[in-house]
C-alpha cells in the first residue's frame, strides 16, 4: 500500500504547501486517478525528458523513455513504497533505465566523446526554481569533491549506460578499480542525500 504520510525524499521541486506531495499524488494514481498522473507529469515531466534526452540525444527516444517511465508508475503505483524511494528518485531511475536501453538498442556509439551530459550551464535554468537550485548546489558540491576520474566513471555509467568492463576498456583501468571508484563516487552523492537542507544565510 502507498502511504500518504511522510514527505518524500529527494524532491525535484521546491517545497510548497499549495501543491500536493508526490507521495499523495502516487496514492491517488494507485486509485486510478488520471488527473493525478497528469499533475505528476506537470511536476516531473520536463526533468524526466531532460534526463532521457541527455542519455539518448534524440527527441523521439527521449519522449518514449519518459512516457514508458510514467506508464510504469501508473501500473505499479499500488506497490510503490515511499519508504524505499522518493517518487522523483524512482522516476529518475526508471527513465534512466529506459533511456539507456534505447541508447544501446539504437547502437549509439558508446564512449568518451559520446557521453558528456553533466550540465556546464546549470546555473541558468535551475536557478529559476529556488528549491531545485539549492539541491543542485549540494549535488555540485558533492561532485566537486570527486577526483576527475570518478566523475568520468559516474558519467560513463549513469549517462552512457556502460558496464564495468566497457568503462574499464574505455579508461584502460582494471575492472576492480572501476567498481571501487564508482562506489566511492556514489558514496559521496549519498552523503548529499543525508545532508541537512542548505540554507542561504545573510552575510555579516
Amino acid at each position, binding site marked *: 500500500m502507498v502511504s500518504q504520510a511522510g514527505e518524500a525524499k529527494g524532491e525535484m521541486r521546491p517545497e510548497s504547501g499549495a501543491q500536493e506531495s508526490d507521495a499523495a499524488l502516487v496514492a491517488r494514481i494507485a486509485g486510478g486517478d488520471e488527473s493525478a498522473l497528469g499533475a505528476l507529469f506537470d511536476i516531473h515531466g520536463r526533468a524526466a525528458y531532460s534526463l532521457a534526452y541527455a542519455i539518448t540525444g534524440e527527441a523521439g527516444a527521449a519522449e518514449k523513455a519518459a512516457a514508458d517511465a510514467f506508464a510504469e508508475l501508473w501500473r505499479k503505483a499500488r506497490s510503490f513504497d515511499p519508504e524505499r524511494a522518493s517518487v522523483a528518485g524512482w522516476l529518475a531511475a526508471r527513465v534512466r533505465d529506459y533511456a539507456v536501453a534505447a541508447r544501446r538498442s539504437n547502437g549509439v556509439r558508446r564512449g568518451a566523446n559520446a557521453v558528456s551530459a553533466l550540465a556546464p550551464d546549470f546555473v541558468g535554468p535551475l536557478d529559476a526554481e529556488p528549491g531545485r537550485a539549492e539541491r543542485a548546489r549540494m549535488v555540485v558540491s558533492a561532485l566537486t569533491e570527486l577526483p576527475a576520474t570518478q566523475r568520468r566513471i559516474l558519467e560513463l555509467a549513469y549517462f552512457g549506460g556502460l558496464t564495468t568492463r566497457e568503462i574499464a576498456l574505455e579508461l584502460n583501468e582494471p575492472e576492480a578499480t572501476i567498481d571501487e571508484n564508482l562506489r566511492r563516487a556514489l558514496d559521496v552523492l549519498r552523503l548529499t542525500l543525508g545532508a541537512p537542507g542548505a540554507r542561504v544565510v545573510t*552575510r555579516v
Partner: protein
Amino acid sequence: MTHRELVDSAAAYAMGTLEGDERKEFESHLPGCVHCQEEVDAYREAAGLLVHVTPTVTPPNSAALRERILHEARRVRPITAARSRQPSGTRAPWLAAAACLTLAIASGYLYWMQQRANSAVLTELATARTELAARDSTIASFLGPEVHVVSLAQSNAKPAMRVFWNHTRKVFIVTAFALPAAPEGKTYQLWAIAEGKAPVSMGTFDTDENGRATVILPVGQDITEAGFIDLCGLTLEPESGSAQPTESPRLIGPWRHVD
C-alpha cells in the same frame, strides 16, 4: 563472494554496471538480504540526484507527450504488483537488529566514507588522470579552475568542515560535518585571510545538534577585490557576528584548487 564483497557490489548493481556471474550471484543473494536491498535503494536514490545537474531541455511538444502518457493510462488500469521486499513483520529478528546497528554506526560511517573518498585523491591513478584531463567532461570546466576548497581541522584530527569557493558563481559553499553547535548567544564566523591585511568576514553560520551544516554564502565585493586570499579561518563570535575576529582562529587552513 563474502557478504562484505556482496555489499560492495550493491553500487555497481544499482547502476547496472555489474555483469555476468557477479551479477547472478548478487541477484540470488538480494531477495534474502534486507541490508543489501537498502544499499541498492540508497545508491539508486543517490544516482537520481544527477538529474539536478542534467541540462534542462523542453520536450518539442510537451502537451502531446502528456496526452500520450494519459492515453496509455486510460488503456491500462493500475495493477497490484507483488512486493519484492518482505513485510517487516516477517523479518528475522537479527535482521531488525542489523538495521538498528546500521543506524547506530551511521555517523561513523559518514566519516569513514569521507576518508575513503579523500584517500582516493592521493593514492590512485595519477598518470591516468593526466591522460584523462584532456578529454574530461564539461563538468571539469566549471568545477576545476574556478573552484577552490579549504579543509578545516584541528591539528592531527579529522576535518570538521570544508568550504568551497566557486569564483564563477561567487558563492562559498560551507559544509560542516563535525563541528559542535555554537554555545548559546554565539555563532561561527568564517574569515578570508590574506598576508599583511586585516581578515575579511565571509559570513556566519551555525551547525545542527549533529555538528552538521550546509550553507551557501555570497562572496562579497570586498573579498573579490582583495586579490589573493591565502587562508580561511574560523572563529566563535557573538551571534550578530563581528567586524573583526575577537579571538584567534579555532580552525584555519589554506585554499587549494579542487583538482
